[in-house]
């Protein structure tokens, strides 16, 4: 309609601002219950803490959800399913990660099959520290997320698109349990030693 490109952009910005303002008050979450964090969700949902007064509601399917909650440690086997769920969700989508296990491994820092840093595999908008965080912490995180959405700072899903190749490369490496050349050499040496015996 005779609008310049710049005008279109401006309109887009304004509309998305409005959309963000509206959508931040109706966050539907799919809670991927791994680890111990799942047990903190029922009190948050039910009448004691009542998250629905902020417009947050649980949703059964990822396709209709806005927020993905990762509630605790993830094994590599579960991470594969988490990524499937995350990729099924429609943009804009946000990820909240619970507890120290998703930040740096937590008490599973030397475990052979849990991932240590969740943000290496999917973009995380918000971490809640603690082992496990209390329901107040979870409510606080949601309010913080609303603020970030309002300010346009929760852009993890855009990061996922921008660095898609790098995320995929990291995921491939962890799924295939790839190791460096050193360990392969070591294994061969071990095998040779065994054969000598």
């Amino acid at each position: 309609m005779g609008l310049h490109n710049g005008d279109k952009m401006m309109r887009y910005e304004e509309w998305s601002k409005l959309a963000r303002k509206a959508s931040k008050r109706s966050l539907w979450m799919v809670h991927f219950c791994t680890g111990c964090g799942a047990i903190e969700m029922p009190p948050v949902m039910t009448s004691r803490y009542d998250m629905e007064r902020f417009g947050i509601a649980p949703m059964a399917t990822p396709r209709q959800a806005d927020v993905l909650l990762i509630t605790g440690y993830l094994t590599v086997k579960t991470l594969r399913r988490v990524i499937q769920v995350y990729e099924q969700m429609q943009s804009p989508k946000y990820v909240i990660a619970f507890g120290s296990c998703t930040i740096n491994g937590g008490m599973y820092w030397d475990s052979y099959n849990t991932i240590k840093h969740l943000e290496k595999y999917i973009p995380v908008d918000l971490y809640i520290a603690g082992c496990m965080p209390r329901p107040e912490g979870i409510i606080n995180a949601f309010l913080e997320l609303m603020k970030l959405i309002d300010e346009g700072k929760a852009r993890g899903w855009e990061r996922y698109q921008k660095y898609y190749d790098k995320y995929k490369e990291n995921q491939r490496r962890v799924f295939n349990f790839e190791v460096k050349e050193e360990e392969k050499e070591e294994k061969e040496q071990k095998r040779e030693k065994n054969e000598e015996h």
Partner: protein
Amino acid sequence: MKSIELLGKGEEMHGRAYIKLSADEIEESIKKLKENGFNHFVMLSCVDWLDKGKFELVYHMWNYEEKEHAMLSVDIDRNNDVMKSMSHLFPQIETYEREIHEMYGIKFEGNNRLTPFLLENWPHDPPMRKDFDSKKFVKQMYESIPFIEGDENEGI
């Protein structure tokens, strides 16, 4: 205790019967206990004695009438980690053997279901063995993966 009387050896340990057996005796002993009231096979567990160079397999059985717990212990060589499967006596042993095969690498002859159980695509040494260096593995496996660059708030 009844199981010690039945098998003619063993000792009482913290209210449970602990019976040391050789690998050949285990099948008959389980059969004998099963016929005499020990009809609940509780679990099969495994201990890795690295400095002694052996694996210890412990078959736990329970008698409901006598309320007696019998632990049948077998040592197998760490370098020759093969054991006869007992899954024909109690079907649930198959699953325990499957898990131990995955976590300790012990081969059970006669068990046809030693497929991956809890781990996916695992090409390394069995992780529960004492000589599996888990800290080193974490360093090579997880810490070597780089963080994604860029600012956190960065969009497209």
